């Protein structure tokens, strides 16, 4: 076991102050490792430099580009590359942990610029894409430098194997399970209630599927109510709801962690109708940890997170009738609903940061066996030697 304190550099490819799963993961991991006594520096694109924690170094302002069906705030270019090199040269790191090194952003630049113990985590799960196949040969020599690869889910691992022909160790994303463990049920959210948390404006979060399913659900459960938590503009969504059912919906806006715990402990069913673009499903893991019974679409990430339906009900993705059917069945069968919730809560403990960070750390240890430090790569050692010899020859 390594007991000494390590100097670890973590690179986050997306804008630090924009919401997103990768950013949350990097933040939680960095804070967990700092708590454990390690020296952590995070390099990330930052929009507002006055509001970043002390362990974050800004690599510049992110650029918004469309990627994988959403807008990604990434950063590249010569100035960013120079900053990345500078950060690596001054950091004196024992190890680099690069997130999403296959995406055109600073993680890729760091992987290009550095040499030594490096670990990469792959978050995205994408369908087979010609574009990625085309850039594969360019990425290969870069990705190859990583001493270990981590994928956050089986779906992400399959993406990696398919596109870049390389294997990865699956380590799930982490959650702070104990924050959600002891939620206090609140009367206003109890009863025949359905819950949804997330940026509901984004089509891929699938709120519209729940909206479409509600007329059927309300026929069988007339007192059903839906609570939607999360940031976003409600007007358009409310207009899309059948006027007779509008009163069933309550928008709570952004809620605190404590409220989230209480919310998850109160509602009858947590609905995750996402239609895709999800690689792990952190919110689903949190819902399970909060003891909620879950009904989720059968996209690969959720299917593997719920172990093919063992720890939550799956419905056919994008089918509001199937969703309605599953919800009604569960609302009618209290015993099954409660036992699913209990099983899910136990299952979710394996996603706790204590477990996950330990697994990540043992990967760090394995990469450190060589006893080297991170340094700037001389991508052409032999070339420089060649030139050097040339010079000597001239003299």
């Amino acid at each position: 076991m390594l007991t000494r304190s390590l100097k670890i550099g973590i690179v986050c490819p997306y804008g630090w102050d924009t919401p997103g799963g990768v950013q949350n993961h990097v933040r939680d991991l960095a804070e967990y490792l700092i708590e454990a006594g390690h020296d952590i520096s995070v390099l990330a694109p930052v929009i507002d430099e006055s509001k970043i924690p002390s362990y974050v170094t800004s690599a510049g302002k992110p650029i918004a580009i469309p990627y994988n069906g959403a807008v990604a705030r990434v950063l590249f270019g010569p100035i960013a590359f120079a900053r990345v090199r500078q950060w690596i040269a001054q950091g004196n790191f024992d190890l680099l942990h690069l997130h999403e090194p296959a995406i055109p952003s600073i993680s890729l630049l760091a992987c290009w610029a550095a040499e030594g113990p490096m670990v990469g985590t792959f978050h995205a799960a994408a369908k087979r894409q010609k574009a990625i196949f085309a850039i594969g040969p360019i990425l290969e020599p870069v990705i190859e430098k990583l001493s270990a690869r981590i994928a956050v889910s089986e779906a992400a691992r399959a993406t990696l194997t398919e596109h870049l022909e390389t294997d990865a160790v699956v380590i799930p994303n982490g959650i702070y399970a104990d924050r959600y463990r002891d939620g206090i049920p609140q009367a206003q959210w109890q009863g025949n209630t359905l819950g949804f948390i997330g940026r509901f404006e984004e089509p891929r979060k699938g709120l519209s599927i729940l909206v479409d399913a509600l007329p059927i659900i309300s026929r069988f459960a007339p007192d059903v109510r839906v609570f939607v938590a999360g940031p976003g503009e409600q007007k358009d969504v409310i207009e899309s709801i059948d006027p007779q059912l509008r009163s069933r919906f309550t928008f709570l806006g952004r809620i605190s962690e404590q409220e989230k715990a209480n919310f998850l402990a109160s509602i009858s069913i947590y609905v995750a109708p996402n239609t895709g673009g999800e690689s792990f499903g952190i919110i689903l893991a949190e819902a399970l940890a909060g003891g909620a019974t879950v009904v989720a679409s059968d996209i690969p990430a959720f299917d593997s997170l719920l172990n093919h339906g063992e720890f939550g009900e799956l419905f056919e993705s994008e089918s509001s009738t199937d969703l309605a059917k599953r919800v009604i069945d569960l609302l009618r069968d209290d015993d099954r609903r409660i036992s699913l919730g209990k099983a899910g809560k136990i299952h979710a403990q394996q996603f706790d940061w204590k477990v996950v960070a330990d697994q990540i750390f043992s990967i760090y240890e394995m990469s450190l066996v060589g006893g080297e430090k991170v340094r700037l790569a001389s991508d052409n050692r032999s070339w420089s030697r060649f030139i050097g010899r040339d010079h000597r020859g001239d003299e």
Partner: protein
Amino acid sequence: MKIFVAAGLLILIFIWYLTFLATRLDRLHHRVETSWANLDGLLQRRAAIALEIARSEIADPASAMLLTAAAYQARESRIENRSASESGLSGALGLLLADGQSSERPAEIVLLRELSELTDKIRIAISLHVDAVTRTHLVRRKFIVRLFRLAGTAPLPITYEFETDVL
């Protein structure tokens, strides 16, 4: 004249590419060494724990003998036979632990837990090592690498046929 400049430039670019490939290969060989050192260390630790288990009261005399022999073999075998003898040790450990051995003595519980943690790590170490080796093989198989002998005198890394299901 122009043609000479162009040809010279092309040759320079080509040499640059060759050195790039050589660096890449060098790095890969290094990665194989590191991943092997890691795996080797973990396997040595496992053999040590196996010996400790053999001496403890978890093992009956017959299994103790089997385990001791397997552990020594794993420790002393040469690199080419390593994977076979490690699989032998896995088998011996599996045989002993498959009976649903449960121990009440704290020292032995610690020993068994240590073994299971180590097994998890070894599983990961194997996949890291196998990945490094296959990558190296892939690059070394390139025509241009073989033609210019870019691998130099570095020996071809040995593929280890670790049977992960035995672990």
